[in-house]
C-alpha cells in the first residue's frame, strides 16, 4: 500500500535527472527492487502507470523492475545463504547472528531516453 508514495519519489528523482540532462521524454525507468524490500513489484507498476501518464515527461514510460535476490550473511560461520528460504537462522551452523547482505534495495538503476 506504500507503493504509490514510492512512485511519487521515483517521479521526483527522474524529473530532476531529466532536467539536468536536458531530456524531453523518458521511455523507460529501470528499478532494482530487493526481494525483502516490502515493495510489491506488481503494485508498483500499477501505481506507476496511473501516476506517470499524468506527466508529460513520462507519458507511456515503462517501469522495468529487476528483482534483487535477498542474501543473508552469518557472522559465526562466515557463509552466505538465501534469506527468503531460511529466514534469520543460518542453515549451515544454526546461528542467529546473521544480517542482511542485500535484498532490501529500492533503487532507481537507470533511465532510458
Amino acid at each position, binding site marked *: *500500500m*506504500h507503493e*504509490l508514495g514510492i512512485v511519487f519519489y521515483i517521479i521526483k*528523482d527522474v524529473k530532476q535527472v531529466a532536467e539536468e540532462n536536458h531530456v524531453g521524454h523518458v521511455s523507460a525507468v529501470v528499478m532494482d527492487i530487493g526481494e525483502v524490500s516490502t515493495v510489491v513489484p506488481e503494485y508498483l507498476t500499477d501505481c506507476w502507470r496511473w501516476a506517470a501518464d499524468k506527466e508529460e515527461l513520462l507519458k507511456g514510460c515503462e517501469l522495468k523492475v529487476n528483482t534483487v535476490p535477498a542474501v543473508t550473511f552469518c557472522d559465526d560461520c562466515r557463509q552466505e545463504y538465501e534469506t527468503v528460504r531460511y529466514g534469520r537462522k543460518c542453515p549451515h551452523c544454526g546461528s542467529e547472528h546473521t544480517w542482511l547482505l542485500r535484498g532490501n534495495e529500492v533503487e532507481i*538503476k537507470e*533511465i*532510458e531516453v
Partner: protein
Amino acid sequence: MDPVKVIEIKKSVFADNDKDADELRRELKKRGVFLLNLMSSPGSGKTTTLIRTINLIKDKIRVAVMEADIDSDVDAVKIREATGIPSIQLHTGGMCHLDAEMTRQGLDNVDLGGADLVILENVGNLVCPAEFDTGAVRNAMILSVPEGDDKPLKYPLMFSICDLVLVNKIDVLPWFDFDLEKCKEYVRMRNPKARVLPVCAKTGEGLDAFAQWLLDEVREWKR
C-alpha cells in the same frame, strides 16, 4: 526511431528523504525540541495512551502533539480537549505514512509554544511508516495484546527501527494467548537495543515508566 540512450542513476528512492530527515534532526537539536515518532496498528490505543501520559508530564515539560491521519481531525480534537496542550492534525492526502518534508511542514504550522517535546502520532500502519524517516529523535511503537505476540516476526522493519516498544492493553492478558516473554524475545531478535514496556492505557498501569522515559530522553536531548 531514435536510438535509446541510457542514463545511469543508481540511487535509493529513500535517499532524499533520509537527507531531509537528518537535516530536520539537526535543526531540532539546535532548537532544543525533542520529536518522538509514535507508530502502531490502527486501534492499538495510541491516542488514549498519549492522553494519559501527557497528563502525567505536562506540568514538568511543555508538550505539543501532531496527529497524522489520512482524513478527519477526531484525534487532534480529542487530545486538545483531554489535555489542554497544543495539538494539530496533519492530513497525508491518502498516503499511508508521513515523510520528513510533511513532518517539517507540520512543525512549521504547529504553535509549539516553546515546546520541549513534540509527539508525532503517525498513521496507523506497521509497514510504510517504518520505511520513511520522519526526522524524529526517537521512534516508539505500540503493540496491543489482541494483535498477538508474533507481530515482531511479521513486521521486522518496524521493530528493528524502534527504540521503545509499548505493549498495551495488558489488562486483557488473561483472555488472550499472548506470551509477554515470547514477545520480548521476538523484539530482541529484531532489535537487541529496543526497550519493551508493558502498559495499560485504560488503567494507567506502566505509564509512569513511559512518562519517565520521555522525561529522561528530553533532558538528554536538550543537554
